[in-house]
């Protein structure tokens, strides 16, 4: 997670000079010993597949750090070489657990985030897999609870805003057609992959690749409706049936993405390594500023569209009661098409921002967010756009702030827990109306 590294970078600055010196000395001494101090490759001759990595701290390679790989009934260990590199051959593609033995790190260096000394590696397309650990200072500089709270709340706001972009489309589609679209998350992934395709792959500048990707996702949303959902509505297919169809679509698209792009995680330009800006206790990058600005502008645009334009009012009317809207002369199918396009545009943008927030683009990145989107939509009141916005901000904040108390690998548990609690106490959500629960 980007913000953890940001927080670390803050602490690092204090010690940077000191450690630079220590590691320069360390490097010199290890060079002096002999280059063949450690076997830094194990099993690479016997096996086709390999996991490799580069253990470094503040750009200095670390020597003699013990790495263990376990999984699929196989285990091996290796020490990093003087160049900080290690490589372990594994018998088959699959999932392996890679452990960095913290005791073997030099004094004063630890794995940056607690619990991140163990990681899982799954082979995708390639025969080698890189696994790097983020190292940080051993001496923990204590940050006051209030400062931590502010920093996390800022992240939560950023996350909540991008979640809102993703949620509003789902909620509008539900409102107008009654469909709970499990394949909505795949539109997010689509937006991110299109940005990746037009940006890094085809070489377009990023400011051009992003709008192209967003427009294509809008088109994708339209095609979803035009080619699949509209014919199903014409056949009068039931809502539960449509929901299962959307699950089928979700599976199809996810594995199609994996087929085309492989199982690995790619980065969009500027997603990593941006300069950290610090304002009081809050640290962020220019990417966060862009992300939040884009979200806020788009959310205002949606609000304007829904409350001030004719077609937006028609959308709300259809969402409220589509039969009544139809008899009062609103073209429900046209409104539905527009809702799908908007849903696609917003989801595409949300997906790109999510790719910057995580950071990374991979085949199931959207699906990882799907349940949080559901939580946000239900919390706010399913079928209402403003409910989705409120719900998203609450869920986003909650997810980030919960890391003050919960370990970060459990932060989604809290958000999914409130989803269940809301249904227990107020199933129609914050802004929803009771009759929708039926």
């Amino acid at each position, binding site marked *: 997670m980007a913000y953890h590294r940001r927080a670390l970078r803050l602490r690092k600055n204090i010690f940077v000079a000191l450690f630079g010196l220590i590691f320069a000395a360390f490097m010199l001494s290890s060079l002096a010993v002999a280059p063949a101090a450690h076997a830094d490759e194990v099993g690479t001759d016997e096996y086709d597949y390999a996991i490799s990595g580069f253990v470094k701290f503040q750009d200095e390679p670390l020597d003699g750090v013990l790495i263990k790989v376990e999984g699929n009934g196989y285990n091996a260990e290796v020490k990093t070489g003087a160049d900080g590199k290690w490589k372990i051959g594994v018998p088959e593609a699959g999932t392996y657990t890679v452990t960095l033995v913290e005791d073997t790190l030099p004094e004063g260096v630890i794995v940056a985030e607690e619990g991140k000394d163990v990681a899982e590696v799954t082979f995708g397309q390639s025969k080698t897999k890189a696994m790097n650990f983020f190292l940080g200072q051993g001496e923990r500089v204590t940050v006051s609870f209030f400062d931590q709270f502010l920093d996390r709340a800022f992240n939560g706001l950023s996350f909540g805003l991008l979640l809102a972009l993703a949620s509003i489309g789902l909620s509008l589609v539900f409102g107008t057609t009654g469909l709970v679209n499990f394949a909505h998350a795949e539109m997010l992934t689509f937006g991110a992959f299109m940005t990746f395709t037009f940006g890094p792959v085809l070489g377009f500048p990023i400011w051009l690749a992003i709008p192209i990707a967003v427009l294509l996702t809008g088109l994708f949303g339209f095609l979803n409706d035009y080619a699949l959902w509209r014919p199903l509505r014409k056949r009068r297919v039931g809502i539960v049936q449509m929901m299962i169809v959307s699950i*089928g679509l979700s599976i199809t698209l996810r594995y*199609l993405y994996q087929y085309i792009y492989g*199982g690995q995680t790619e980065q969009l330009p500027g997603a990593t390594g941006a300069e950290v800006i610090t304002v009081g206790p809050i640290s962020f990058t220019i990417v966060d500023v862009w992300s939040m600005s884009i979200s806020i502008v788009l959310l205002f645009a949606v609000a304007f569209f829904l409350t001030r334009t004719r077609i937006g009012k028609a959308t709300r009317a259809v969402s409220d009661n589509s039969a009544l809207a139809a008899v009062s002369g609103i073209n429900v199918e046209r409104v539905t098409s527009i809702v799908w396009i908007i849903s696609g545009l917003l989801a595409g943008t949300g997906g790109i921002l999510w790719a910057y927030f995580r950071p990374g683009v991979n085949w199931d990145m959207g699906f990882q967010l799907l349940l949080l989107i559901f939580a946000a939509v239900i919390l706010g009141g399913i079928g209402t756009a403003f409910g989705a916005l409120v719900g998203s901000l609450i869920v986003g904040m909650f997810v980030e702030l919960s890391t003050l108390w919960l370990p970060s690998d459990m932060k989604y548990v809290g958000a999914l827990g409130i989803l*269940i609690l809301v249904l227990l106490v107020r199933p129609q959500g914050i802004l929803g109306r009771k009759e929708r629960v039926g």
Partner: protein
Amino acid sequence: MDWGSLFTNAAYEIISPTTAAYALAAMGLAVHFGYTGLLNFGQAGFMAVGAYGFAISTLTFGFPWWAALLTGIAASVVLALILGIPTLRLRADYLAIVTIAAAEIVRLLFTTNTFAAVTGSAAGLSGYKTSWQAMNPIPAGNYNIGPWVRDHNEVWLLIVAWGLVGLAALLIWLLMRSPWGRVIKGIREDEDAVRALGKNVYSYKMQSLVLGGAMGAFAGMVFVLPRSVQPGNFQPTLTFFIYAILLLGGAATIFGPIIGSMIFWTLLSIFSGFTARAVEIGWLPFMTSLQAGQVRFILVGIALMVIVIYRPQGIFGSKKELAFVKQ
């Protein structure tokens, strides 16, 4: 190129323990979804608590296999109760979202490093089979089952797994022709009508959730006996595949889930075997062997869509028992 093994491997999927596990899980879903009309999208969660209940009680508390089995079942009953209390009054699509969320909570709790000492976190658990294998009455050695040679542990697992499938089928058959089954099916068709007859719909739904969930827990245990417990195996996609199996066979049928599971696994095996070999000898030059493995899941997704749209009753189902089509 060994084409013969393609078919013997695929044919083994008809009787493999994994097929039996998926069949059991699908039968649990048949009780929930096919007979009661409950849209449970958290079957993976029931399988996870069953598997982890078995493994953790063996490894951490040293329970013998039968106590471990009871723990797994008890865990699934508890999950059903926790899940059922807030959600069984809700509309179908809400229930779907809550159950999938609950299953994810379960999976995340088993994955987190916080409880790694007990759950093994992302690496999962293994080594819980000793007591189970010790009570195996079959003498050690290799046995011929048709064209396949399997060791005594696998044979024992096959007997138990398919025995469980048979018992579950018998149980569902008996229940669904009993007064209890008629109430359950009545709830699926028209909840209000059943309520008007003075039945406690909520309580019946809860009983159905517990019963199907317990079958899910059995499925989870059968699923992990030939392998290790990995939290990554219990993702929502597992539930989706079980839905595909159930809808392929027929949601409100006894044999639908069983035959569905056999067809699902056999086709997957034939397909992956075929594409892998075809890629190897250069018939599909545009595809790598890894991609060949993914094509089958693309096809599972498409098959799920096509079945639900064009033949929602599945292979064995009757159009009369399809409350979910018109809602």
